[in-house]
């Protein structure tokens, strides 16, 4: 165990003496975050919330309460700073406004939406339940915010619908109502849910911590973790590269003829990559907190999430290294994976606007899980709220470690 730590600390020391690696690990993500912060206007305002006045067009063709409830939410006081809604009757006009870059997104509430939710007969036709969002591809972040608001609304409506179903089922099972009364009662509960959903404060991007302190949505809280995670992938692939480099420069064979077991050597290398990734993430978090006054959220949650993200990323770094033959190949494939994972995992664009299958595919990336957790924390969430991403990242890391260890053993890197 002691040798494992010594090897890991040696690798950490060597990485922090490599100027090129330091530029990629620390300077590049810091400068990119800074640049994107300027582009997004984060530094042009004294306020924490720099995404504001998002132009959104709403086309409400629903005659019922739910459609109006969603319009009311967009027009509510709590979202007054964040969105600038306009209501249109013609869908084509709304799409044109988005195409002309005059709106971040258009929201189409279909005719009969409320009825389809409340009337069980209509539920068989699932298309009637869908609210369409027409996003502006040039404004991915703000389009993502609109989608988040709509998702939250639909989620609440769905909760109301299920509640109504369960309530009616229970009443019927207990013979407290007659079957012919079920429809009327379900509609009443649904209408009440709709009324609840339309409450002004029902949906807000301003959240509060447990202590009651107000947390504001900060675009940098999305960008900074995204950039850090992109370059974390560089760090772990670079770490994997050192394993192949050690073989080339003769230090790995020298380690193998010392009284050091193969598992100590591989464990030490993994520990070194983990330490390097962890140090990189923590330095970026501390520096962005100091220089950008960025609120990452619950410190314990951030620390545990970072550790889990690094475990998953190291898993990928090792897996990649176990497949290739030379340090050059690790660099080439590592760069490709870094960019691919950034796209799929939401580092460059909000993954909420990606097609469903791409969103699902994105779950293979540490970026997606970790970003989900970081966003939750920055919006005031605590440790219990990020257990799912932490667990997902740890499972990913463990599976990749196991596969990599098998492949390393098969290739003779690790002697039995």
């Amino acid at each position, binding site marked *: 165990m002691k040798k494992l730590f010594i090897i890991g600390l040696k690798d950490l*020391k060597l990485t922090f003496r490599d100027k090129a690696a330091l530029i990629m690990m620390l300077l590049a993500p810091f400068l990119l975050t800074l640049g994107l912060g300027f582009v997004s206007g984060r530094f042009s305002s004294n306020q924490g919330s720099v995404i504001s006045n998002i132009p959104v067009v709403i086309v409400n063709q629903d005659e019922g309460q739910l459609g109006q409830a969603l319009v009311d939410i967009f027009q509510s006081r709590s979202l007054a700073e964040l969105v600038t809604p306009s209501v249109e009757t013609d869908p084509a006009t709304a799409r044109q406004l988005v195409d002309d870059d005059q709106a971040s997104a258009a929201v189409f509430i279909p005719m009969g939406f409320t009825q389809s939710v409340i009337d069980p007969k209509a539920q068989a036709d699932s298309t009637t339940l869908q609210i369409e969002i027409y996003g502006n591809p040039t404004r991915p972040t703000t389009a993502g915010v609109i989608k988040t608001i709509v998702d939250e609304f639909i989620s609440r409506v769905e909760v109301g619908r299920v509640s109504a179903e369960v309530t009616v089922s229970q009443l019927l099972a207990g013979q407290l109502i007659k079957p012919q009364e079920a429809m009327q009662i379900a509609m009443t509960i649904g209408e009440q849910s709709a009324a609840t959903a339309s409450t002004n404060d029902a949906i807000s991007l301003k959240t509060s911590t447990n202590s009651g302190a107000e947390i504001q949505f900060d675009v940098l809280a999305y960008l900074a973790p995204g950039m850090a995670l992109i370059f974390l992938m560089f760090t772990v692939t670079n770490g994997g590269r050192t394993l192949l480099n050690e073989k080339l*420069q003769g230090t790995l*064979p*020298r380690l193998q*003829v*010392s009284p050091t077991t193969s598992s100590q050597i591989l464990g030490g290398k993994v520990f070194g990559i983990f330490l390097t990734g962890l140090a990189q993430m923590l330095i970026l978090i501390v520096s962005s907190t100091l220089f950008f006054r960025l609120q990452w959220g619950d410190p314990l949650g951030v620390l545990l999430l970072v550790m889990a993200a690094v475990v998953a990323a190291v898993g990928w770094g090792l897996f990649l290294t176990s497949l290739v033959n030379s340090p050059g190949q690790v660099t080439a494939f590592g760069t490709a994976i870094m960019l691919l994972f950034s796209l799929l995992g939401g580092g460059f664009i909000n993954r909420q606007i990606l097609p469903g299958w791409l969103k699902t595919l994105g779950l293979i990336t540490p970026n997606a899980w970790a970003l989900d957790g970081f966003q939750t924390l920055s919006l005031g969430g605590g440790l219990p709220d990020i257990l799912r991403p932490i667990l997902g990242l740890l499972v990913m890391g463990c599976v990749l470690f196991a596969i990599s260890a098998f492949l390393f053993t098969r290739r003779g890197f690790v002697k039995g």
Partner: protein
Amino acid sequence: MPDILIVNNLVKKFENVVAVKGISFTIKEGEIFSLLGPNGAGKTTTISMLSTLFQPTSGDATIGGHSIIREPMQVRRMIGVVPQDLALYEEMTARENLTFWGQMYGLSGKTLSSRVDEILEQIGLTDRAKHRVKTFSGGMKRRVNIGVGLLHKPNLLFMDEPTVGIDPQSRRAILDSVKDLNKQGMTVLYTTHYMEEAQELSDRVGIVDHGDLIALGTQKELTKQVGEMETLVLHFDESEDVEKLAASIQKLPGIIKADVSDHAIAIIVPEAEEALAPVITRTNELGIKVRSIDIQEPNLEAVFLHLTGRALRN
């Protein structure tokens, strides 16, 4: 002295290539034993198996009574390895390198730090201890490379061609240090393709070629194999066709063997001075100009030539 190393019919195959073809030898405690042979003879593969880096295809060896196959950890604790190529962390200082490798051999605390100081003194780099290895000359790096192998005071030191690619001064220092280590009681297995190094250092020499151990013994025992023969070496310019000349010289009376290597013909004869006149005459007849002539006493080069028909550095 008891045998510290017993090698028993060691074989190593790499796919279709047999790199080591069943070699057997022993090394006594306190001995300097050289494996002498040209590049690709199987010296490094042999050391790699003995140091537990490669698993032998068949055969076994024991070091201090421990099998390299069944007890690799015990073997590793007994041996020090100085690899042919530098195996150091260039971004770390000499002291950091020695400290790290010392830790890998289980040294710690004051023992480690005093041992690192001793090694730095021994390799003459105390004043450069805090400098990164990447700033060192080739010779200095070689010295650190050797120092790493000595940290834990091994019973048996493997040195795999430690003088390859360095300046004569550093080479001299390394050869002297090997002799000093041996005087202090360390057993050394030294591989080289330089005949002079094997002659200068070794108590006994094993000559290897194409994975076979073709001769083994003290220098006296080995040179006896070529009798009292001398070697006459003629050197030519690159443009000369010496193959035809060698074949012609071979036919002269009294010539034991004439072999071409590296624009030179090595001729084994009972009396070099007597053979010189007819050889030069034949050379002139073929219109070939001689650049220089060497006459060598019986040595390991002649033994290798005698056994293989090729020069050692071919």
